[in-house]
C-alpha cells in the first residue's frame, strides 16, 4: 500500500490515465499496477510518488430517493454509485473501491478528467463520494490535448481548487434532465401499459421531446405537401462549335402560356451579346472545426453519423493526435503553438509539402470563426505522428481535421467570374463562367472543397449567338427534405437544444425508441402520437423556446451568473404543471399511445401487397404449432388467399418498401448482429434467383456422382 506523501490523479478513462502517467512521470517511466484486476499507474515526479487512477466515465448517477418504478411523479433524488441502478455498470463497484482505497492516505488529490462540464462532474462525484468527501481540498488539471508538453504544463500550473461553476452546471443539467426524463417517460409508459396491458418503453426528455417535435413537424409538412407546377426555359447556344447552356432571366415561370410563348419566340433565333462583366471574387478560408461542424462535414463526405464521429474523434484525442473534440470553439489561439504543430505535421508524408509552405511564411495567422468555448480551442491536430496504424475511419477523420487546420492558415481563394448578357427577341439570357486565379486555401483542403471551373469562349458586346433550341419544361415545387443525422444536429444547434456532447446521443435514442426510422428520418406513428399528446396537454415541455431558456440558464451557472437551486426550482415548477395535466388525462393518453403502438407493430409486420390475390397484404406471421415465422396474406383469415412464403428463422426482418423488379414481390431485409444485412425478394420462385437455384442443382448432381 502507498504511504504518506503521495498524490492521486483522477483520469476520465484508462487510456487517458496511461498517457498522463507516461507524460508527467520522470523520464516518461511508469509502473502499471493492479487493484482487484483493475489497472492504475504509479509514477515518480521529482522524487514524489503519484498514482494515476482511471475512472470509466461517470461512476455515480442519479436515482430516485425511494420507492418503485411504477409510479409518478418523482421529485426526490439522490446521487448513487452507478452499479446500484445499472446492470451494465457492474465494474464501477470495483472502480469505486479502488478510489476509496488508494485515496485514503493520499496527501493531494487532483481531478484530471476532461476539462468540461462532464469531466468536472465525474471528478467531483468521485472526490465527494469515493474519496471521503475531499472535493473541497482537491485541485484541478486543465488541458486541451494529451500531449506531453500540455500535460506537463497543466500539472505545473494546477488550479488550486475544483472548477465549481462547471460542477454546479453539470449537476443541475443531470438533475433537471433526470427529473424530466423519469417523470415524462413514466407517464407515457404507465399510461400505455394500463390501457393495453402490454409493456413498451416510451421515453421523452427535456431535449428528446423538442428534438422529436422538430422531426414530427417536418414529417407533417411533407405528408401535407402539394406540389405546384412551374416552368423553366431550357436554352442552348452553339459557340465556336461547342454547346453552352444559357440561363433565362427568370429562374421559373408560373404560367404555362408565358413559358411556351418565350420558347416559341426565341427558338432558332439569334441572340446579341449586350454586356460582358468580369469580377474578381475572393473566398476566405473555412473556419476551424468545432465539434458540430466536424460532425456535419464528416456526414457529408463519409456518411458517418454524429455519434460515430464523436467516438472516432475521442479515440484520436486519447492517442494525443488531436485536441479535445467536445468543443464549440472555432478559435485557434497562438498559445497552441502553430509552428510546433506544423513542424510535427511535416513529418507526416501527405502533409509535408503543405506544412513546409506555411512554415516558410513570416507570420502565421489562422482564419477563425465566431463561436467560442471558454474551456477549449477549436479542434486541431497536435502534430504528433500516429504511433499505430490508424483504421480507415480514423484516418479519414484525422485527415479531414489536419486539412481543415492547414486550410485555416491559407490565403483567400481568388476566382474570376464572367457574366455574359445576351438579348434575344426582347428576352434576356445569361452565360456564366468562372476561372480560378489563385487556389489559396482550397489547395490544402482538397478533396473536400469544390473547385470546378467553367471556361467561356472569348465574347464581346455585339457578338451574334445562334440559339440552338429553346424549350419550356414543366417542373414541380419540392417538399422540404427530411432530417438526416447531420441536418438534425444543425437544427438542434440553431435552436440551442442540448449540448455539443449530448446531441449525437439524442438522435440514437429516437431510433431506439422507435420514434423515427430510416437514414432520412421518418417519424413513426408512435413518434407522432407522443408529440400529439404532449402538444395537447403540456405544450411547454416540448417547446423549443422553453428548452432554450432552460439551456441558457444552465449556461449561466457555468459563468456564475445563476444558481443551481434557482434553476432546479423553476424547472420543477414547470414540470409539476405538466404532470398534473397529463395525470388527469391518463386514460385518454394510454388509449392513443396503445393504438399507435399497435399500428406501428402492424406496419412493421406488413411486408407489402400480395401479388397473388392483389387485394391482401403480405404480413409476417408466426405458426401457432411450430412457433416458426413465415409470410402470409392478410386475406387468409377471410378465406380468400392462401399464399404463404418462407422466411429465415434468425435475424431481424424489416421491410424495405421496395418491390422486386423481376417478379413484383416485396423485398425484405434481414439484419444479424454478427454479419452484414441482406436484402432479398420473398418469392422463392423469383426469376432473379434462377442462377442460385442452378448452382444448388449442380451441387446436388456433384453429390450424386
Amino acid at each position, binding site marked *: 500500500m502507498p504511504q504518506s506523501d503521495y498524490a492521486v490523479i483522477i483520469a476520465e478513462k484508462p487510456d487517458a490515465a496511461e498517457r498522463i502517467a507516461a507524460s508527467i512521470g520522470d523520464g516518461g517511466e511508469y509502473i502499471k499496477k493492479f487493484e482487484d484486476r483493475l489497472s492504475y499507474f504509479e509514477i515518480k515526479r521529482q522524487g514524489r510518488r503519484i498514482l494515476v487512477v482511471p475512472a470509466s466515465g461517470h461512476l455515480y448517477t442519479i436515482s430516485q430517493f425511494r420507492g418503485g418504478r411504477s409510479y409518478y411523479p418523482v421529485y426526490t433524488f439522490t446521487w448513487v454509485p452507478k452499479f446500484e441502478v445499472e446492470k451494465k455498470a457492474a465494474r464501477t463497484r470495483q472502480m469505486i473501491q479502488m478510489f476509496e482505497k488508494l485515496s485514503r492516505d493520499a496527501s493531494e488529490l487532483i481531478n484530471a478528467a476532461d476539462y468540461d462540464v462532464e469531466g468536472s462532474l465525474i471528478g467531483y462525484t468521485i472526490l465527494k463520494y469515493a474519496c471521503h468527501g475531499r472535493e473541497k481540498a482537491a485541485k484541478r488539471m486543465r488541458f486541451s490535448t494529451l500531449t506531453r508538453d500540455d500535460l506537463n504544463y497543466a500539472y505545473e500550473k494546477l488550479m488550486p481548487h475544483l472548477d465549481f461553476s462547471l460542477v454546479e452546471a453539470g449537476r443541475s443539467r443531470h438533475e433537471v434532465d433526470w427529473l424530466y426524463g423519469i417523470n415524462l417517460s413514466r407517464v407515457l409508459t404507465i399510461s400505455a401499459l394500463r390501457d393495453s396491458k402490454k409493456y413498451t418503453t416510451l421515453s421523452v426528455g427535456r431535449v428528446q421531446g423538442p428534438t422529436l417535435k422538430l422531426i414530427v413537424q417536418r414529417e407533417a409538412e411533407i405528408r401535407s405537401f402539394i*406540389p405546384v*407546377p412551374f416552368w423553366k426555359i431550357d436554352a442552348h447556344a452553339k459557340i465556336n462549335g461547342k454547346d453552352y447552356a444559357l440561363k433565362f432571366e427568370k429562374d421559373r415561370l*408560373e*404560367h404555362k402560356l408565358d413559358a411556351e410563348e418565350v420558347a416559341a419566340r426565341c427558338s432558332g433565333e439569334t441572340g446579341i451579346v449586350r454586356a460582358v462583366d468580369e469580377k474578381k471574387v475572393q473566398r476566405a478560408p473555412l473556419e476551424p472545426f468545432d465539434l458540430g461542424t466536424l460532425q456535419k462535414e464528416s456526414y457529408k463526405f463519409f456518411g458517418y453519423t454524429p455519434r460515430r464521429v464523436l467516438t472516432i474523434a475521442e479515440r484520436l484525442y486519447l492517442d494525443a493526435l488531436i485536441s479535445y473534440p467536445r468543443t464549440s470553439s472555432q478559435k485557434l489561439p497562438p498559445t497552441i503553438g502553430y509552428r510546433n504543430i506544423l513542424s510535427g505535421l511535416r513529418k507526416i508524408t501527405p502533409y509535408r509539402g503543405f506544412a513546409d509552405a506555411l512554415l516558410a511564411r513570416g507570420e502565421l495567422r489562422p482564419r477563425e470563426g465566431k463561436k467560442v468555448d471558454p474551456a477549449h480551442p477549436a479542434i486541431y491536430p497536435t502534430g504528433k505522428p500516429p504511433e499505430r496504424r490508424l483504421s480507415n475511419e480514423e484516418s479519414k477523420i484525422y485527415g479531414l481535421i489536419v486539412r481543415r487546420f492547414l486550410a485555416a492558415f491559407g490565403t483567400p481563394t481568388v476566382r474570376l467570374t464572367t457574366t455574359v448578357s445576351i438579348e434575344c427577341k426582347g428576352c434576356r439570357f445569361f452565360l456564366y463562367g468562372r476561372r480560378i486565379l489563385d487556389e489559396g486555401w482550397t489547395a490544402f483542403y482538397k478533396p473536400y472543397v469544390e473547385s470546378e471551373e467553367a471556361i467561356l469562349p472569348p465574347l464581346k458586346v455585339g457578338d451574334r449567338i445562334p440559339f440552338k433550341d429553346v424549350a419550356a419544361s414543366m417542373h414541380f415545387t419540392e417538399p422540404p427534405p427530411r432530417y438526416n443525422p447531420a441536418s438534425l444536429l444543425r437544427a438542434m444547434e440553431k435552436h440551442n437544444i442540448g449540448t455539443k456532447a449530448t446531441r449525437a446521443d439524442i438522435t440514437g435514442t429516437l431510433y431506439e425508441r422507435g420514434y423515427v426510422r430510416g437514414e432520412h428520418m421518418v417519424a413513426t406513428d408512435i413518434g407522432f402520437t407522443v408529440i400529439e399528446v404532449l402538444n395537447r396537454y403540456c405544450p411547454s415541455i416540448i417547446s423549443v423556446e422553453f428548452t432554450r431558456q432552460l439551456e441558457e440558464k444552465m449556461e449561466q451557472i457555468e459563468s456564475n451568473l445563476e444558481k443551481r437551486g434557482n434553476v432546479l426550482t423553476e424547472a420543477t415548477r414547470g414540470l409539476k404543471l405538466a404532470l398534473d395535466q397529463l395525470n388527469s388525462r391518463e386514460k385518454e393518453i394510454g388509449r392513443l399511445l396503445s393504438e399507435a403502438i399497435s399500428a406501428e407493430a402492424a406496419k412493421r409486420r406488413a411486408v407489402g401487397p400480395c401479388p397473388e390475390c392483389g387485394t391482401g397484404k403480405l404480413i409476417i406471421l408466426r405458426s401457432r404449432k411450430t412457433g416458426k415465422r413465415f409470410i402470409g396474406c392478410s386475406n387468409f383469415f377471410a378465406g380468400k388467399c392462401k399464399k404463404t412464403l418462407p422466411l429465415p428463422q434468425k435475424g431481424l426482418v424489416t421491410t424495405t418498401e421496395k418491390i422486386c423488379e423481376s417478379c413484383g414481390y416485396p423485398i425484405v431485409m434481414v439484419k444479424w448482429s454478427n454479419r452484414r444485412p441482406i436484402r432479398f425478394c420473398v418469392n422463392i420462385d423469383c426469376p432473379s434467383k434462377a442462377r442460385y437455384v442452378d448452382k444448388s442443382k449442380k451441387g446436388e448432381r456433384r453429390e450424386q456422382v
Partner: protein
Amino acid sequence: MRCEICSKESDKELCGRHSRAHELLKETFKRWQSAMEISWERYLEEIRSNPKTGSWVKEVAEYIIKKKKS
C-alpha cells in the same frame, strides 16, 4: 365517429390531418388553375400520381376520386 380514410377517432367525416389536407387541396387548386388550364378531376389525378405529393394529401385525393366514382 371515425375518419373515413384512416379510421382514427374523429368528430367529423375526416380526422384533423386529413381535413387539413383536404383544405390545402382545395386552396392549391386555385394556384394550379392560374398556372394552367385544368379541371378539378384532372387535378386530383395529377396530385394522386405525383411522387412529390404528401401521403395524407394523396389519401384525400384518392378518397374523393373513389367517392365520386361510387
